[in-house]
């Protein structure tokens, strides 16, 4: 991003900056609507924004939108670009669950609420449908200007992103896409009549991809998704360091918001961090990357210079105030360990053991979950830094950046430092001589398997930390700061997005199968509970429960749906599958899994809307509530709910 910005304008820093910001959020806005269209859209968005802010629902095209804070990677229903981060400006429909960028809301007019067969569920847990984008293709009657615009954009972006594309990796998305398309086709042919229309659309789609890939054969083939375009790719070998960098950035961003938010500097730092995290020229031996590298280094230097100019005089880098130093030493310890050791990057559990022992003990005692403690810790550190009276507000972010740089320089191999331009005033880092790219990456031998798992956790962590922390700091002015913040956040999150999304999906899948397995794994236990009685073989209560639940999805009225839910639960109770409240939820989870009802949350939302669920004090209410709990358990990833759950607890 910053690279592009520099190309466009090397003189006016502020203007460039503004442009880059917009660039990110406007990526998906390429189709250039007419003035009237624009105005209408603006109005709607404004209304929507107000609604979202005030926490009210806003019905639009049958969807009931509310603000959405993405704590793990999601894709926009409309443009398929990532929606990520607590500050991401997105909406989700409370009824059918689709998630869209705020600026994409107008685009999904053709997918009325409830009409989409599967829930927009990126984890693929509750529906097995292909991507929402493909559905939109089906639903639309003509290839809108949007589609071609995306293709064009791909073309444009490819030139820039080709840097980090290695050929082996590039093939994967295409194949994946193909498989998905086939699956979707099959899916559709069984479910729908308009077969011919579908085929036409499929052809149209294939063509479109060719347009995107055609003009530049050999270079960056496989930029098949807009998610991956124009971004610095996360290199497999560098993952470990990237994730740690991300953690640091998260903290730094927290600081930035608290202090005098100097966006230019922040962006420069973020860019630098990302640059360091992805040594294309180094371990991966990236081909044909040299010119881009030069360009990048130049950009870095440019921003670095700007940055140090901004800094000069505002804060004394060499001597940070004592409390800040203390807080930073905690963070630095972490950083040091993860960078200098040739071990896999630190897991969250390991992070837990670091620093702040006293606080931890107290909070850890209850089984409140480690995630909570973890976030508290990060908050504490950020707070410590921010609340320190000796820190000049303007230089806060600067001090943090520099601390980070200094620690990094101290632990990196001698003489290697990528921050050449950035930290001219730092004592430690000024020893630097070479460019980072040439240096031997300290984490070259990192095991990548656990990395991305950690990454997902860390990203979530950072998101939650920021979310938890920022409102208290800013109070009413939060909204104003958010927009500025989104730009920075998007860049980081988007970079990590491709590698993390797969992992998230995998986690969701394994978790659900673990839930399902609860029942299947314990046939003995079932028999002990009295299932081997007369007729138990023929009428397995579990399967009866599943059937009832499937029947629920076919009922039309909310009342009848509720009655079916109750029947389902009763079946479990009568068969003595369940003998206490503790058993009910896991058993019901098995039922939900086996029933495989598409858009189950939508059904629940429907019940909630049409029935007076508050008045259901009896067994119906209990059954319904239990089902709701189970669905939230399945849909919500561990850690997202107040950090009280973890994967192993499901076993």
């Amino acid at each position, binding site marked *: 991003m910053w690279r592009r910005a520099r190309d466009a304008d090397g003189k006016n820093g502020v203007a460039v900056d503004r442009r880059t910001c917009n660039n990110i959020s406007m990526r998906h806005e390429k189709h250039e609507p007419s003035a009237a269209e624009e105005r209408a859209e603006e109005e709607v968005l404004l209304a929507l924004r107000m609604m979202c802010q005030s926490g009210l629902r806003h019905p639009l095209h049958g969807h009931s939108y509310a603000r959405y804070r993405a704590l793990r990677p999601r894709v926009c229903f409309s443009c398929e670009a990532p929606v990520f981060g607590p500050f991401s400006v997105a909406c989700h429909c409370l009824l059918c669950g689709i998630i869209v960028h705020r600026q994409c809301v107008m685009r999904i007019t053709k997918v009325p609420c409830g009409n989409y067969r599967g829930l927009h569920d990126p984890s693929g847990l509750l529906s097995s449908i292909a991507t929402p984008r493909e559905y939109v293709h089906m639903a639309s009657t003509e290839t809108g200007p949007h589609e071609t615009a995306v293709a064009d954009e791909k073309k444009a972006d490819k030139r820039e992103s080709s840097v980090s594309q290695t050929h082996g990796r590039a093939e994967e998305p295409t194949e994946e896409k193909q498989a998905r398309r086939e699956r979707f086709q099959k899916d559709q042919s069984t479910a729908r009549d308009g077969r011919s229309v579908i085929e036409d659309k499929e052809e149209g789609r294939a063509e479109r991809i060719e347009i995107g890939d055609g003009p530049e054969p050999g270079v960056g083939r496989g930029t098949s998704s807009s998610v991956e375009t124009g971004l610095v790719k996360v290199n497999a070998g560098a993952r470990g360091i990237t994730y740690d960098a991300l953690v640091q950035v998260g903290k730094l961003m927290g600081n930035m918001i608290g202090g005098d938010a100097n966006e230019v500097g922040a962006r420069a730092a973020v860019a630098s961090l990302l640059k360091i995290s992805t040594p294309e020229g180094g371990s991966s031996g990236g081909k044909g990357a040299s010119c881009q590298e030069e360009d990048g280094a130049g950009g870095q230097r440019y921003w670095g210079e700007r940055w140090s100019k901004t800094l000069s005089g505002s804060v004394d880098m060499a001597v940070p105030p004592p409390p800040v130093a203390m807080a930073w030493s905690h963070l630095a310890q972490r950083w040091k360990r993860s960078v200098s050791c040739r071990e896999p990057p630190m897991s969250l559990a390991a992070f837990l053991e670091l620093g702040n022992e006293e606080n931890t003990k107290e909070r850890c005692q209850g*089984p409140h979950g480690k995630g909570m403690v973890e976030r508290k810790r990060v908050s504490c550190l950020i707070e410590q830094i921010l609340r320190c009276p000796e820190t000049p507000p303007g230089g806060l972010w600067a001090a943090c950046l520099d601390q980070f740089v200094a620690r990094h320089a101290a632990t990196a191999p001698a003489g290697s430092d990528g921050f050449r331009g950035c930290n001219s005033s730092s004592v430690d880092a000024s020893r630097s001589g070479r460019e980072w790219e040439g240096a031997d990456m300290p984490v070259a031998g990192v095991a990548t398997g656990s990395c991305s798992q950690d990454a997902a956790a860390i990203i979530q962590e950072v998101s939650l930390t920021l979310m938890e922390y920022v409102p208290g700091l800013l109070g009413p002015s939060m909204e104003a700061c958010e927009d500025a913040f989104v730009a920075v956040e998007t860049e980081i999150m988007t970079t990590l997005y491709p590698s993390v999304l797969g992992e998230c999906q995998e986690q969701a899948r394994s978790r659900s199968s673990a839930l399902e397995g609860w029942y299947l794994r314990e046939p003995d236990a079932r028999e002990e509970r009295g299932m081997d009685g007369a007729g138990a073989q023929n009428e397995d209560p579990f399967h009866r429960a599943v059937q009832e639940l499937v029947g629920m999805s076919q009922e039309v009225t909310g009342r009848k749906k509720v009655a079916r839910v109750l029947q389902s639960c009763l079946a479990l*109770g009568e068969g003595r*599958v369940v*003998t206490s409240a503790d058993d009910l939820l896991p058993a019901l989870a098995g039922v939900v899994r086996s029933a495989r009802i598409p858009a189950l949350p939508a059904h629940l939302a429907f019940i909630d809307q049409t029935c007076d669920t508050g008045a259901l004090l009896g*067994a119906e209410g209990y059954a319904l509530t239990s089902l709701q709990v189970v669905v939230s358990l399945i849909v919500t990833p561990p850690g997202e709910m107040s950090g009280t759950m973890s994967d192993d*607890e499901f076993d």
Partner: protein
Amino acid sequence: MAARPREIKLVIIGDSGVGKSSLVLRFVTQSFKPFSESTIGASFMSKVIELDGQTVKVQIWDTAGQEKYKSLAPMYYRGAAAAIVVYDITRRESFGTLQRWVSELQEKGPRDLRIMVAGNKKDLEGDRQVAAEEAEAYAESIGARYMETSAKDDMAVQDLFLSLCQQVPLVSPAGGSAIRAGIYLSGPQAEGKAKQGSRTCC
């Protein structure tokens, strides 16, 4: 004229293994062994009782005590009029957990919720780890009542439920039907909102 709600939702909360289900079973079926018909696996039960000459149906919602479900517990509190928070007098940590349950209940539960603190397993007096005075003082501090029970020996179980139901505030029929007014503890506004919301449904 203010009247008792005809239906009372009662939630049982507490750590795993403190005897929540046993208490309910004792109250409903007068037996210690789990047996009941047409309930959802013994986790939901109801009983019709008589309070001051009026029949009241008590809907007892048992909750899962495991920690992993805790974050979802507020879904169970909705519309509850009374709650029994149970701990095990022979297990100190269950009393600690109880305090967190209570604070969460007060934070996220309905406003008019009546809470009863119950120390279960009184029959195991020898293994007592939490003094009655301490628990009583705590209950007082949160504006709740305290009782020690034994589901096994049927000590004060009926008393526990009945006195709690007695505390449930009366509702005036002016605000609609007795049942409705008893449920919408958050007031008529919430009801209005719910109606508004239903119109937005597709």
